[in-house]
C-alpha cells in the first residue's frame, strides 16, 4: 500500500473525530510547548548570564574559605581568615599584581539629610577595588579617610539622590554612628565584582575603606600582632597568561604558610577561582537547572503520549469492523499497522508543530515578565518535531500492532 494513500486514509480517520483528535493533539501541544518554553528560557538565561559574566573577564582570582565540598558561588560560607599579613604575602607571589581584600561592616541604616534607609551592610575594601573604572561619577575613596562610594541603586534610595559631596551618616550595628562623605557613585551596570553576585548592580551597595571602618581583627598566628582579617580576597594577576601560575602560587601559599591555614575551621577548605572557573561552574549549574526543569516538562510530554496511546486503543477497538473489512479485501497486516501508526504519528507531529509556537509564545511572555532577552533554540524546534513523531510511533506501536493482528472473521462479526 502506497504511503500517500495511507496518509490520506489516516488524515480522514483523524478528521472524522475532530474533538477527540483535537484534545489528544492538545495534550502533545502542552507537552511540547512546556519543553520548548523551558528550553528557550534556559538557553536565554544562560546566554544572558554568561554574557554578563563572560563579557568582562578579568585576570582575577577569587579567594575564600568555605565549608568543604560545597559548590556555592564566590564567597559562599566564607569565614574571616585572611590576615593583613596574608594579603602582603599574597601580593609577593609571582604573577600577582595586586591583592584586594573585602570584608563586611555590619550596619543598621544610612541617613542623608532627613532620609534614613535601612542597610544591612557596607563593603569594606581597598581603593584598588575600583581600578576597573566602575566609578562613574567622582573617584574611589582613599584609605584612612571617612569616605564612601555608593552604587547608583543605593544613591537612588534618597531624595534627592546621593551625589558626590553629600554627607551620609552610617549607623553601625554596634550602635555607633559615623559621618562620611560620598566621594564616588558606582555605575549600576558595572558588575559589582564576583563577590557581589551576578545581580550585584541591582542591590544597593555601599563601599567603605577598610581603614578606618573595618574592625574585624584577629591575632596573626605568624606575627602575634592583632590584624584585620577578611573573609574574601581578590587576587589580581598581572595578565590572563599569569592566572594559572598565580593560582598555583596562591593555593600553595594558603595551604602551607598562611595565617589563614591556621585560622580556618577544620572542615573548611580554600577556594581559589578564576573568572573562567566561575563561568564553568555557573554553566554547570545552569545546565543542571535547565535539565531539571526540562525533565519536568518532558513528563507532560509523556502524559501527552499516553493520551495518544489511549485514543489509538479506542480507535482500534472502534474500528475493529473496518479492520476486518480491509483485511477481507486484501489488506496485509503491514498495511493495517502502517495506517494506524501514521495516524498516531500524525497526532504527535501535529501536536509538536503546534506546540513550538505555543512554547515560544510562553517563553516570550515569561521573558517579558522577568526581563530576559530571548535566544531561540532553533535546533530544539527540529528536536521537538522529531520527538512528536517519536511519541506518535511509541504511543501508536502497540495499538497499531494489535490492530494488525486482528483476526478478520472475528473483526467482521464485531458489532
Amino acid at each position: 500500500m502506497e504511503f500517500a494513500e495511507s496518509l490520506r486514509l489516516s488524515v480522514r480517520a483523524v478528521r472524522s473525530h475532530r474533538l477527540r483528535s483535537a484534545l489528544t493533539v492538545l495534550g502533545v501541544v502542552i507537552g511540547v510547548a512546556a519543553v520548548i518554553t523551558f528550553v528557550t528560557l534556559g538557553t536565554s538565561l544562560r546566554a544572558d548570564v554568561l554574557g554578563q559574566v563572560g563579557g568582562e573577564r578579568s585576570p582575577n582570582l577569587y579567594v575564600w574559605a568555605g565549608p568543604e565540598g560545597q559548590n556555592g558561588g564566590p564567597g559562599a560560607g566564607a569565614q574571616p581568615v585572611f590576615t593583613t599579613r596574608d594579603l602582603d604575602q599574597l601580593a609577593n607571589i609571582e604573577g600577582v599584581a595586586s591583592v584586594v581584600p573585602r570584608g563586611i561592616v555590619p550596619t543598621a541604616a544610612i541617613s542623608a539629610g532627613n532620609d534614613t534607609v535601612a542597610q544591612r551592610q557596607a563593603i569594606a575594601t581597598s581603593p584598588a577595588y575600583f581600578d576597573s573604572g566602575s566609578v562613574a561619577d567622582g573617584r574611589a575613596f582613599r584609605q584612612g579617610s571617612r569616605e564612601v562610594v555608593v552604587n547608583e541603586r543605593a544613591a537612588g534610595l534618597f531624595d534627592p539622590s546621593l551625589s558626590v559631596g553629600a554627607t551620609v551618616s552610617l549607623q553601625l550595628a554596634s550602635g555607633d554612628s559615623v559621618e562620611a562623605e560620598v566621594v564616588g557613585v558606582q555605575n549600576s551596570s558595572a558588575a559589582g565584582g564576583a563577590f557581589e553576585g551576578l545581580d550585584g548592580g541591582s542591590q544597593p551597595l555601599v563601599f567603605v575603606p577598610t581603614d578606618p571602618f573595618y574592625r574585624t581583627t584577629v591575632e596573626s598566628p605568624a606575627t602575634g600582632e592583632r590584624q584585620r582579617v577578611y573573609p574574601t580576597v581578590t587576587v589580581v594577576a598581572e595578565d590572563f597568561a599569569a592566572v594559572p601560575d598565580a593560582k598555583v602560587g596562591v593555593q600553595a601559599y594558603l595551604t602551607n604558610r598562611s595565617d589563614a591555614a591556621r585560622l580556618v575551621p577544620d572542615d573548611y577548605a580554600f577556594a581559589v577561582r578564576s573568572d573562567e572557573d566561575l563561568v564553568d561552574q555557573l554553566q554547570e549549574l545552569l545546565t543542571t537547572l535547565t535539565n531539571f526543569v526540562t525533565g519536568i516538562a518532558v513528563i507532560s510530554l509523556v502524559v501527552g503520549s499516553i493520551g495518544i496511546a489511549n485514543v489509538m486503543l479506542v480507535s482500534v477497538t472502534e474500528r475493529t469492523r473496518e479492520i476486518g473489512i480491509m483485511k477481507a479485501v486484501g489488506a496485509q497486516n503491514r498495511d493495517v499497522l502502517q495506517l494506524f501508526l501514521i495516524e498516531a504519528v500524525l497526532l504527535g507531529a501535529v501536536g509538536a508543530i503546534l506546540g513550538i509556537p505555543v512554547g515560544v509564545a510562553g517563553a516570550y511572555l515569561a521573558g517579558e515578565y522577568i526581563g530576559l532577552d530571548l535566544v531561540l533554540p532553533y535546533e530544539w524546534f527540529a528536536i521537538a518535531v522529531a520527538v512528536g513523531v517519536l511519541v506518535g510511533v511509541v504511543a501508536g506501536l502497540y495499538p497499531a500492532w494489535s490492530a494488525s493482528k486482528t483476526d478478520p472473521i472475528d473483526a467482521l462479526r464485531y458489532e
Partner: protein
Amino acid sequence: MATSDSDAGGTDSEAGGDPGPDAEGAGSEHRQPESGSRPDDGNAVALRAVRKTYYLGEPVHALDGVDLVIPRGSYTAVMGPSGSGKSTLLNLIGCLDTPTEGEVWVNDREVSALSQRERTRVRGQEVGFVFQTFNLMPKLTAAENVALPLVFEGIDKRERIDRATELLDEVGLADRAGHRPNELSGGQRQRVAIARALANDPAIILADEPTGNLDQETGTQIMGLFQRLHDEGNTILMVTHERPIAEYAQRVVHVLDGTIERVEEIESPRRVESDGP
C-alpha cells in the same frame, strides 16, 4: 468485464497458467461437476475432505468432511439451516479461515497450505466477498470503497479511479460515486459491495446471504445483477436460506450439520426479467 478464465491467466502465474479446458464464459453455464475431477484441473474452487473443528470444551465440527468442486463460470447456491456451516464454508474458500483438515484449492492453488501473507493476497486478488451486512467502509465514498482492494494491491490512483468508475457504472451507480454508504439505500450499498468484489477480477464471487438484509424487490434486483455477472462469465457461490433466491443458481448444495447432504441440479434456473438495476 473479463471472464474468470482470462482472469486466471492474468493473475495466477504460480498455478502454471493453465486456463483449463472449460470455462468459456457463458458457455460453461450447463457444465456438470465431475465427481472424479482432480483439485488442480482448472476448477475455480475445489475442496477435498475439508474439516473445520472449533474446540470450545466439546469439539464442534462446523464442517465435517466436505468435498466440493465449483467449476469456472458456474453459479452455485448453498442452502441449509442456521449453524449448518455455510458461512464457514465460504470463509475457508475466501481464505478468511483455514481448515483443520483437508485441502482447499482456489484457482488451481492449494490455499490451505499458504502462509498468512499469501492467503491475504488470495483474498485481495482471487476472491470477491459480498456480505449480508454489506461491510462497506463508512468513511469512504462509494468509489473509494470499490477501489479499496486495488489500494492494497498497489494499483496506482489513476487506474483505481478508472476501474471504480467503470464498476460503479456496471452496477448502475455511476451517479453515486461520491456518496458515503450512509447516503445510500440498502440495495445501493449491496451493489457498491458487489462492485468492490469485482474490483480485482476475482476467480470467484463469494456471497453470504447477499439478500438477507434487503426487501424482496431489492433482493430481486441484486439477483438480476448476479445473473448478468454470471452471464458475463463470472463464477458465483452464494449462501442463502431462501429457496426462491437459491433457484436463480444452476445448482443448490444442501448443507446439514457440517456435511453436504445433497447437490440439487436446477433444471431451468429462474431468471430476472429485466435485469437492469
